């Protein structure tokens, strides 16, 4: 025993005390003494010894009770108590342990045994102290973390307040700790009166995943407000995440948009499970992921983002979810799975109840194997009326009533501009500022975007449409687009947009001319009949939306007339 301890010796027999005290002093310890239990308690409080050697039978208060009192009133510390007993007395050994004794010593007192027992108990005490400190440190750490969590929570809540998830046509299930699971759900009205939603799922958990949600939300809201298309929003999120996140972190996401009339649904699925479009008791479309999750590919590489579009009406429902629901595990280690999920949706007789029914199915399936923290599920009913009423209830007015004006502007982009500028968001913005077209703005954007894309891809870049035959070569098409655009030295696109007011509404004339050789519309038409799928759809869409479409200058220019009222 090298370190000096302060030891309290309690015995009513003076001779015993003297013997023990001598042994302890010889071992280098400080000793204080008491002659009964009551005195022991008083001296203990005063002197705070490290260890107690305690006799059992004493006047005034016996050793058992004194030990019990000392141990109880000092439960935060470990104070070893060695009882002095006769070895033969089993009952008093048991009573000694019960009252809180840690060891026993019997007469005659042996110096070596007493020192060994003291050392052993001090080792226990030391472990106890270490554990106590660690527990304390852990508690402090936990408190700190909870505080930081609360602060982060507040910041994030403020950040996500812009979301319009309160509208009646959206139902969502997203765990309250989802933030730190890396799931994110955003919703915003579009400047033209439609609705846009993003559901994202970051790899990993915790703060690392949560950090990425901030720029995603920022980009989503600001670009949506400025009238950018969902493809552009996706690309920008991808570029930002690529820039800031480490390689293994990325975000699988779906962005969907319904236009102001809630008739046209556009979906970009980048790495999330199939988006389900429900109508008339059945899933009508499974919208598969067509591109890499966001944040993996460097800007300008082969990331091809293209939205899928669907005609819908107020009875269509869209289901967005992360893989948590499919991979939910029950006590038997079974997965909830896609089949069960689809069955839940299709089995409901009342479409209004589907969402609750899925939740119920999931609860029944998981029973007590609660894991719902990882589950994010969103239902969007494509009902403009419910949406607009919810917004109106909150006094949110989106678009001014349209008032037809007369205006005209044109824009010419030369090769060097074509390389770096996407004029579509700019044109959208100009048109929104000049002319509120009310619910029709989306259609105009669609027309403009198709016309410009055609002019750039086929007129200027001379890309081969047939490359878009299959999903596989589709990718090649976009790689080719990037490559040719990067090396572009010649070519131009000229756009002229003119608006003529009528008594009710107005007439928009859009003229687009490119520097290319033109094309044979008849050839494209017959091609469209044969192949309904991947390309050439743009022209059909334009012809559908516009009252007049004419191809001029051997097909290198096109003029369309769009009428609204």
């Amino acid at each position, binding site marked *: 025993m090298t370190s000096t301890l302060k030891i309290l010796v309690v015995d009513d027999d003076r001779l015993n005390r003297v013997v023990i005290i001598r042994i302890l002093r010889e071992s280098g310890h400080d000793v204080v003494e008491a002659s009964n239990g009551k005195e022991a308690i008083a001296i203990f409080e005063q002197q705070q010894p490290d260890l107690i050697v305690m006799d059992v039978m004493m006047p005034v208060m016996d050793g058992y009770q004194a030990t019990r009192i000392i141990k109880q009133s000092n439960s935060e510390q470990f104070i070893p108590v060695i009882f002095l007993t006769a070895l033969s007395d089993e009952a008093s050994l048991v009573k000694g342990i019960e009252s809180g004794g840690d060891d026993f010593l019997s007469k005659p007192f042996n110096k070596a045994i007493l020192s060994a027992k003291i050392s052993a108990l001090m080792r226990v005490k030391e472990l106890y102290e270490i554990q106590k400190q660690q527990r304390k440190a852990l508690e402090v750490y936990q408190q700190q973390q909870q505080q930081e969590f609360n602060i982060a929570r507040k910041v994030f809540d403020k950040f996500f307040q812009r979301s319009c998830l309160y509208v009646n046509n959206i139902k969502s299930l997203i765990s309250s700790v989802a933030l730190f699971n890396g799931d994110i759900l955003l919703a915003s009205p579009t400047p033209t009166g439609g609705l846009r939603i993003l559901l994202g799922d970051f*790899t*990993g958990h915790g703060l690392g995943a949560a950090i990425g949600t901030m720029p995603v939300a920022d980009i989503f809201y600001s670009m949506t407000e400025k009238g950018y298309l969902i493809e552009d929003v996706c690309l920008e999120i991808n570029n930002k995440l690529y820039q800031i996140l480490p390689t293994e972190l*990325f975000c*699988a996401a779906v962005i969907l948009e319904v236009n102001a009339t809630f008739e046209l649904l556009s979906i970009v699925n980048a*790495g999330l*499970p199939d988006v389900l479009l429900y109508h008339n008791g059945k899933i009508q479309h499974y919208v598969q992921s067509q591109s*890499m*999750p966001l944040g993996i*590919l460097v800007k300008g590489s082969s990331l091809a983002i293209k939205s899928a579009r669907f005609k819908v009406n107020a009875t269509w429902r869209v289901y967005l979810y992360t893989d948590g629901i499919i*991979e939910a595990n029950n006590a038997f280690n079974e997965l909830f799975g896609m089949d069960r999920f689809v069955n839940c949706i299709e089995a409901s007789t009342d479409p209004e109840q589907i969402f609750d029914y899925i939740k119920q199915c999931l609860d029944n399936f998981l029973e007590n194997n609660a894991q719902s923290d990882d589950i994010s599920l969103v239902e969007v009913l494509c009902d403009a009326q419910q949406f607009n009423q919810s917004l109106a209830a909150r006094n949110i007015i989106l678009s001014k009533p349209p008032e037809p004006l007369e205006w005209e502007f044109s824009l010419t982009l030369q090769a060097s501009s074509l390389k770096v500028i996407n004029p579509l968001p700019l044109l959208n913005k100009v048109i929104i500022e000049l002319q509120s077209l009310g619910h029709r703005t989306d259609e105009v954007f669609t027309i403009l975007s198709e016309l410009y894309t055609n002019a750039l891809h086929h007129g200027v870049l001379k890309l081969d449409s047939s490359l878009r035959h299959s999903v596989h070569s589709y990718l090649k098409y976009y790689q080719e687009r990037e490559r040719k655009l990067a090396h572009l030295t010649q070519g131009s696109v000229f756009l002229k947009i003119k608006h003529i007011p009528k008594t009710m509404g107005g007439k928009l004339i859009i003229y687009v001319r490119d520097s290319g050789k033109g094309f044979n519309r008849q050839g494209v038409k017959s091609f469209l009949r044969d192949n309904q799928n991947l390309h050439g759809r743009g022209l059909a869409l334009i012809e559908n939306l516009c009252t007049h479409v004419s191809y001029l200058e051997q097909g290198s220019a096109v003029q369309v007339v769009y009428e609204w009222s």
Partner: protein
Amino acid sequence: MTIASQYQQQNGQLVIQITERFDYSTRDEFRASYTNTDEIPKSYLIDLQHADYMDSSALGMLLLMKEYVGNNNVEIKIKPSTNIHKILDVATFQQMFVIKSPIV
């Protein structure tokens, strides 16, 4: 041990076989399987035919491996099980890895 790797002398391919689950828990083991090699492999084959589960952090781990291997001429081939093939497909990883069709 759910990950085993073997360097094949005759074709210079490092075969990494993963069974059971391919997820965050196998992160260090997976990384070690391609970083602790004596030879520099000419190509890699990740055999996931006997793995029944893969999560998104495993996708991230594949990206880290791709980054480590660096050179785009070095092929990383993946042989998935049917389940895992779906996951790779959703993430359109065929753009970055050579993914073989699962044997049904």
